[in-house]
């Protein structure tokens, strides 16, 4: 790329020389003397004498040289496109891959908007750097070097006059863009503020309308809209001054060369052709140099963008223990004195010990933040336990490969995510090769098959904004079916049935019971009817296993379970009605 940039610049230098040859050597009959490249080209077209008798050949020569230069420009730009797109593709892939592999905790805390911005607009800034800024810098440097070389060989004093203003042109644009950087930033900020208000007004439109706050919102928006307009206008205003001043400098440089050149020509120091040559070179140099100032400030943006991207890439991804193996999970699960804290000194789980027999159904009850979900996340090693030991089928959890663990444990998250694909493709995400009837079996157990069939496009219904919007309960049921397709040895429902009505909830659990005799099942719920049918109920309170036992056992004791039971019961005072029946 560097090479082609140089060649293109070099050939570009030849073009004005042709005009000079026509004026000096052909029209004005001055003997020809020139550098290697131009001499070769002239020779190629039959030498000066031939050109003199066939002046149109000079035109042809110009077309030839320009086309040659055009070709190199094309090659340079194509290389730039190839290279920058490849670099950026690799970067994008790396980002996507890495983000997926970042720990669960990272995603819990991640700010989606910011992360997406890093993956898209920051990467785009980097692309622009490779695609154009880098070339522009290199090109400007080559142009100045070559033009200087060509000019010096003609006349040193003229050369000096020709570049008199160049440093100012460069400095001016460099300083200017430094200076307005802040305005650029504040424009971006104002735009952000405006779109935030817009976004909020739109997503809160129901509240706005219900309170009759249209005017209030309008005023809020007008304020931000005005501010954005004003700062944009101010910026353009500055740019107006910049362009006019830099044009002024450029033209003044040209004028000086012209006037000084005329006097030199008058004195016979340079020829008319050389005057035209200098004039052309000045024009050729001034533009890239004035661009250089802008580009150099812009590279600062690329620097910032690349830092932001690498910040993501350098965040440590999940990894396995060196000795981790694939393992058969059919067996008991044993927790022994397991503790876990997200932040130091704030233990979420504090010395938890229990054993779950293979095939048992365990229901887990606890207040919000008591550590129920954490417990299940640890079992899937979405988080790593810090002390104690967990074994499945006798094997320490740390020594089982994560992908093995996750493929054999099916977990339905509290807020499951459906991808904007068809329902069938969402289901198949768990197992691409699943048979049709097996899939339908799963959707039947999750009590969602009939709902899906009712959609106009059935299993081909698109989920998401352009497709059908599923209710919370329907989403959870699709997610349950998806997890069931995995045929896991351990199943975890993290409050997955809360958005489903009690009747369907019971149906699903009954169907599960029938299918999964050997499957160890954990159900987190706050709904008493969901809990009471389990083989055993765990009550988690303040990070410890406060109580465990069957429904009857727990009701017999004074504890959280019986208290919750009473609260829910108190809401139902229609006992008299029941009794009167």
């Amino acid at each position: 790329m560097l090479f082609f940039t140089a060649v293109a610049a070099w050939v570009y230098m030849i073009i004005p020389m042709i005009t000079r040859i026509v004026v000096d050597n052909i029209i004005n009959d001055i003997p020809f003397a020139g550098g290697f490249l131009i001499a070769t080209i002239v020779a190629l077209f039959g030498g000066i004498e031939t050109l003199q008798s066939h002046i149109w050949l000079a035109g042809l020569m110009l077309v030839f040289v320009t086309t040659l230069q055009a070709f190199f420009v094309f090659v340079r730009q194509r290389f730039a496109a190839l290279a920058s797109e490849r670099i950026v593709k690799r970067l994008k892939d790396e980002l996507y891959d890495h983000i997926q592999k970042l720990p669960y905790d990272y995603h819990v805390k991640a700010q989606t908007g910011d992360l997406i911005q890093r993956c898209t607009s920051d990467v785009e800034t980097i692309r622009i750097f490779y695609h154009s800024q880098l070339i522009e810098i290199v090109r400007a440097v080559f142009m100045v070097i070559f033009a200087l070389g060509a000019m010096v060989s003609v006349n040193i004093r003229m050369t000096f006059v020709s570049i008199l203003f160049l440093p100012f042109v460069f400095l001016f644009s460099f300083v200017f863009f430094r200076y307005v950087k802040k305005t650029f930033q504040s424009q971006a900020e104002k735009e952000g503020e405006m779109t935030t208000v817009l976004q909020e007004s739109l997503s809160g439109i129901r509240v706005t309308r219900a309170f009759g706050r249209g005017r209030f919102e309008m005023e809020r928006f007008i304020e931000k809209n005005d501010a954005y307009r004003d700062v944009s206008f101010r910026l353009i205003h500055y740019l107006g001054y910049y362009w006019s001043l830099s044009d002024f400098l450029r033209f003044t440089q040209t004028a000086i060369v012209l006037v000084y050149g005329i006097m030199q020509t008058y004195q016979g120091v340079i020829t008319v052709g050389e005057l035209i040559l200098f004039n052309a070179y000045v024009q050729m140099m001034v533009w890239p140099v004035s661009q250089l100032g802008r580009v150099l400030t812009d590279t600062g943006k690329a620097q910032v963008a690349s830092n932001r991207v690498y910040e993501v890439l350098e965040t440590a991804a999940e990894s396995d223990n060196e000795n981790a193996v694939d393992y058969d999970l059919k067996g008991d699960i044993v927790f022994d004195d397991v503790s876990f804290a997200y932040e130091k000194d704030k233990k979420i789980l504090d010395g938890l010990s229990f054993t779950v027999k293979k095939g048992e159904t365990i229901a887990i009850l606890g207040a919000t933040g008591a550590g129920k979900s954490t417990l299940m996340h640890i079992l899937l090693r979405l988080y790593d336990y810090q002390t104690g030991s967990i074994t499945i089928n006798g094997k320490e959890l740390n020594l089982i490969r994560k992908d093995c663990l996750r493929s054999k444990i099916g977990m339905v998250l509290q807020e499951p995510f459906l991808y904007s694909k068809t329902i069938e493709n969402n289901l198949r995400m768990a197992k691409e090769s699943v048979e049709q009837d097996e899939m339908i079996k799963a959707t039947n157990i999750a009590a969602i098959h009939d709902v899906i069939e009712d959609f106009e496009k059935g299993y081909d219904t698109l989920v998401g904004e352009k497709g059908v919007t599923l209710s919370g309960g329907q989403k959870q049921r699709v997610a349950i079916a998806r997890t069931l397709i995995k045929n896991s040895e351990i199943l975890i429902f993290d409050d997955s049935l809360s958005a489903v009505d009690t009747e369907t909830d019971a149906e699903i659990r009954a169907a599960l019971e029938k299918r999964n005799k050997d499957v160890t099942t954990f159900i987190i719920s706050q709904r008493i009817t969901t809990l009471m049918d389990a083989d055993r109920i765990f009550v988690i309170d303040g990070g410890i296993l406060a109580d465990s036992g069957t429904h009857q056992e727990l009701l017999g004791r004074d504890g959280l379970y019986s208290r919750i039971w009473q609260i829910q019961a108190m809401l139902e005072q229609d006992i008299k009605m029941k009794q009167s029946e």
Partner: protein
Amino acid sequence: MQQFEEQDYSRQFDAKLWRKLLRYCKPYKKTFAILMSAGLILAVSDAAFPLFTGYAIDTFVVDADLSNLLVFGILYGVLILINSICVTVFIKQAGKLETFISHDVRAHGFEKLMKLSFSYFDRTPVGWIMARMTSDTYKIGDIIAWSCLDITWSLTIIVFSFGFMLITDVRLTVLILLVVPFMVLASIYFQRKILRAHRESRKFNSKITGAYNEGIGGAKTTKTLIREAQNFREFKVLSKGMEKAGVRAGTITALYFPVILSLTSIGIAIALGEGGRSVINNMISLGTLSIFISYAGLLSEPISNIARILSEMKSAQAAAERTIALIETDLEIVDSKEIVKQYGDFMEPKSDYWEKIQGNIAFQNVSFQYKNGEKVLEDFNLEVQAGEKIALVGETGSGKSTIINLLCRFYEPTKGQICIDGRDYRERSQIWLQSNLGYVLQSPHLFSGTIKENIRYGKLDATDEEIEEAAKTVDAYAFISKMEKGFDSEVGESGSKLSTGEKQLISFARAIIAKPSIFVLDEATSSIDTQSEQAIQRAIFKILEGRTSFIVAHRLSTIRHCDRILVIDQGRMIESGSHQVLLQKKGHYYNLYMNQFRDEAVATHLLQKN
């Protein structure tokens, strides 16, 4: 995710649409005039520079007569000055047009959005509206301002330079002109291709943004499904496609400039060859030759400029079409002019003239159907006394929410009428009713800002005491004062820093601070946790006190607290009465009750046994 996707367009020039856009230009007639004059003068001065050089060569160099050099220098300086001033002026004026016009379109669009009825937002994704209000409005401002300038400049330069060349040497001009058709064709061809290629790569880009969005949003689910590898494979197909599209766009762009360059060089070559011969034959002067060479070189820019604008017009037209469509959407609920005159609208509410609402509500033979003919409510009748609490019960899609929306006048009856205090509510303005409503949504929506600001949303002139009072009423005071900054704590974007229960309580405080006469509550379906649930229940009971209330209820305790329960099924009221009465009836409510609340009943029963 689809909201990111690029939309297709390939339509003919739509004169009507552009005429509509012209409305937005009217206030800036003067700016347009200045801009065009600046563009004109600039083009003339740009075209004059070669004339100066030509004169200099002929007079000072060839004739070796330096007597006019000083005058020449001064004039040249003046020309530079004019040129620079024109540049400042045109950038400033075009910038003004660009920013002001897009600002005006946005302001207009926003005002419209505030007036549009609920049904519009039911069927239009927020992402779609956002795109219209941002990138499309930018594009409109951009094309109007800069194309106007570019066309003026380009045409002037073409006319001027050709005019000069024709006067000087017709034959040479005609020869140079031979290149122009090729240049025009190449420009049109390439500009079209470039636009298409860039759009193709933007399409991929939006897909990639969508993929990142899903990859990040779904990362947790991905882990539980161990889909990383498969997802990555799917992503790589996209990013490869993007790379290819990018290279294609880059290549076609890279090809365009060299082609134009070569074509230009043919023009210059003709000038050089033919002109050179004319100089030797003493038909034209050396200075004239240099002018011809310069003009031949100058040709490509205006031509490619115009070609670029023509192709950009297409995408700008698509943007304008969508934005204008948004602005011209029919309002489904409108107050008549007389009513607005008397009661004001949301921009200028005339609250001094508003009658106080007692809270007697009557639905008289109300039917409602969607525009597509789907019937939701049929012949619905209901009399509600001031202060009565009404619970609406029924399955999803039965029409409960429609009744609420009709009551709030988010929808209007397609047949029949709704009277408030004995008068059809259409006889008063929307803002009159909605300012007297307390309204709490199923999922509470807070605005970013402080807690105080959010509560004040219900009553803009509320004092701090009133705000605290409202918070106390709904039992939110305790948790708010525990927060580090109390009422001045930021709630985060759409309340993200608060728990669902806390958001709920604040939305209650917001709803009651203005002491509304009518209260509407769409109860959340899923419970949060038992303790917060109780706090919310207590708040609800307090709020309902002495207010005409409509509640889409899911909690037994809420339902039981109401004076009357309406069971809605397929758009009809099939039962109504108090909890006890309905249970004794052993009808739909009884069944619903038995099904939906059986758990709680069984629980109680079991408890009795123990």
